[in-house]
């Protein structure tokens, strides 16, 4: 599901999504995404409320049904927060109306996965709780326009506590400050409208982010530059209203050096291209308003076409 997001997202940033995808594919892919939705099981409502949302693939072998309104509870086939986020993003990019999404079931799942300290587990039964899933939970709640699955105060406190002595966020409290975690924390605060309450020191955070620029950006002090951190940190700066302080020329030349003759971007000039780094490279160029690329919403990390479609669905504009 996430691989699909990087592909569809890249095409959207390139302005090619509509022309590259036939009407038949568009419809069938939307169906495929819905076939990954885990729904309440009327015969086991109690257990199934922890597991609803979207899963990454149909690996568990249940029969393909894009029109289902319930699924049989299976403890080995649960939805996850990151896949629910990318599934919804993919549906928006493909122009779906979200009418088959069970919003209430997803909000309930989120509510059960939020921990005492405000963080989220990615899926039922996992102890892998950290800031990544707080971000995904916020994007999901924004798209569904239902925040009942997020205790905003606790989530804000968690993000605040995850800022280390460097004033940037780690994966969780006490963790080393990290570009990816910082993106997640800042974007989640932006979506919750809690930037003011959630940041320990905004100026110092901006300085930390800018200090990560070598030509491209590194994810932590004294690490190598990497295409994906150009976006994670660039996106954080954009959400902090400080992207204009980035050195565009250097950043652009680094990104160009990570493009390969086969097309696509790698993580640095020596690496082969992959879909994640290609999306991240395009997304960063989009932040710099590269001609020919469309914009993207850095709080949601979704290309603008998907966000505009969401606005239309919600009756704005």
């Amino acid at each position, binding site marked *: *599901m996430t691989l*699909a997001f990087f592909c569809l997202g890249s095409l959207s940033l390139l302005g090619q999504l509509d022309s590259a995808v036939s009407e038949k594919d568009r419809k069938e892919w939307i169906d495929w*995404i819905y076939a990954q939705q885990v729904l309440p099981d009327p015969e086991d409502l109690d257990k199934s409320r922890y597991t609803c949302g979207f899963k990454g693939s*149909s690996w568990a072998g249940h029969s*393909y049904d894009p029109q289902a309104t319930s699924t049989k509870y*299976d403890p080995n086939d649960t939805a996850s927060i990151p896949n629910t986020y990318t599934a919804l993003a993919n549906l928006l990019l493909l122009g779906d109306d979200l009418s088959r999404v069970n919003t209430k079931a997803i909000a309930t799942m989120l509510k059960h996965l939020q921990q005492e300290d405000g963080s989220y587990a990615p899926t039922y039964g*996992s102890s*892998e709780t950290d800031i990544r899933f707080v971000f995904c939970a916020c994007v999901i709640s924004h798209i569904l326009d239902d925040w009942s699955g997020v205790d905003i105060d606790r989530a804000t406190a968690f993000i605040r506590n995850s800022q280390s002595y460097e004033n940037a966020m780690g994966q969780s409290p006490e963790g080393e400050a990290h570009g990816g975690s910082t993106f997640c924390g800042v974007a989640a605060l932006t979506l919750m409208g809690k930037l003011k309450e959630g940041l320990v020191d905004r100026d110092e955070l901006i300085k930390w982010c800018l200090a990560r620029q070598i030509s491209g950006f590194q994810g932590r002090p004294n690490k190598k530059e990497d295409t994906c951190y150009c976006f994670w940190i660039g996106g954080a700066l954009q959400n902090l209203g400080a992207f204009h302080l980035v*050195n565009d020329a250097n950043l652009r030349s680094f990104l160009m050096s990570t493009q390969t003759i086969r097309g696509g971007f790698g993580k640095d000039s020596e690496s082969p291209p992959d879909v994640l780094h290609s999306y991240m490279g395009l997304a960063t160029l989009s932040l710099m308003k590269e001609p020919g690329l469309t914009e993207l919403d850095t709080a949601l990390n979704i290309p603008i076409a998907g966000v505009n479609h969401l606005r239309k669905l919600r009756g704005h504009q």
Partner: protein
Amino acid sequence: MQTDSYANNPEWEDVQPIPQDDGENPLVPIAYSREYSEAMDYFRAVARVNEKSQRVLELTAHIIDMNPAHYTIWQYRQSLLDALKMDLNTELDFIDVLAEEKSKNYQIWHHRQVVVEKLGNGSREIAFINKAIEDDSKNYHAWSYRQWVVQAFNLWDNELSYVEDNLRIDIRNNSAWNHRYFVVFSRPDAKIDDSTVQREVEFSKRMIKIAPNNGSSWNYLLGVLRKCGQSVETLEPFLDELSKDNIQSPHLLSTKILLYEHAAQKQERSINDEALKLCDELASKYDPIRSKYWGYRKSQLQAISI
């Protein structure tokens, strides 16, 4: 590890494999290897009936070896450890081998934590983590897991010297710096008195003198001061000393600016011109990649009202 195909293995004769049903036009058709597809077909079948057996344990090991990122397989394996009353030390042996190749994978570390928590004994963990850090001194999972182990089994005593060993090898290892902060300030019985603060401040100053361009040690120094409510102004003699030695590190100049800013705010007067000059020098000479930032910083300083 099992390489025979399951279909020809008499031990699996009774199982009817279940293929993946992905519709006619999946969005992400993945080109699984035949070996992986077949193993997964058998896994689906046994998971469906919740079979907990030795052969399923071996099957999960086979799948994990091909795809260690498959969360559900790990979760199923954890339920097998309980059901089969496995010797958890054997499971740690299994992870020891696996981690040699795949120490960047999230799931391995979480699985390790689950097993060690069940075992209630962390005596093998420090050696295990040391090995991962030797291979990759900034492995985020290894350092996070180390924090958990140190806390859970009260293993604080040797940590400071471990940090110093790491910084001797690489003074720029930011993960080691972060761990130092954790060890000093998060130990539940830590007494943060003046002598501790003094020790940390002096330590970071020594490290800065060795490598004045190392952002990690500067961040640490400023972090310690903030944590202990000490003013940055106490750094003035140290900064002067560095300047006398002709050190031109952007971190030094940026900290000087911070001092001027504090002084102006405290004394409610406009910023010393020297600070504005430093911004210009950073922008043009010492840190030109951030010239826009230093221009912005300059305008911030000029805006301090009198």
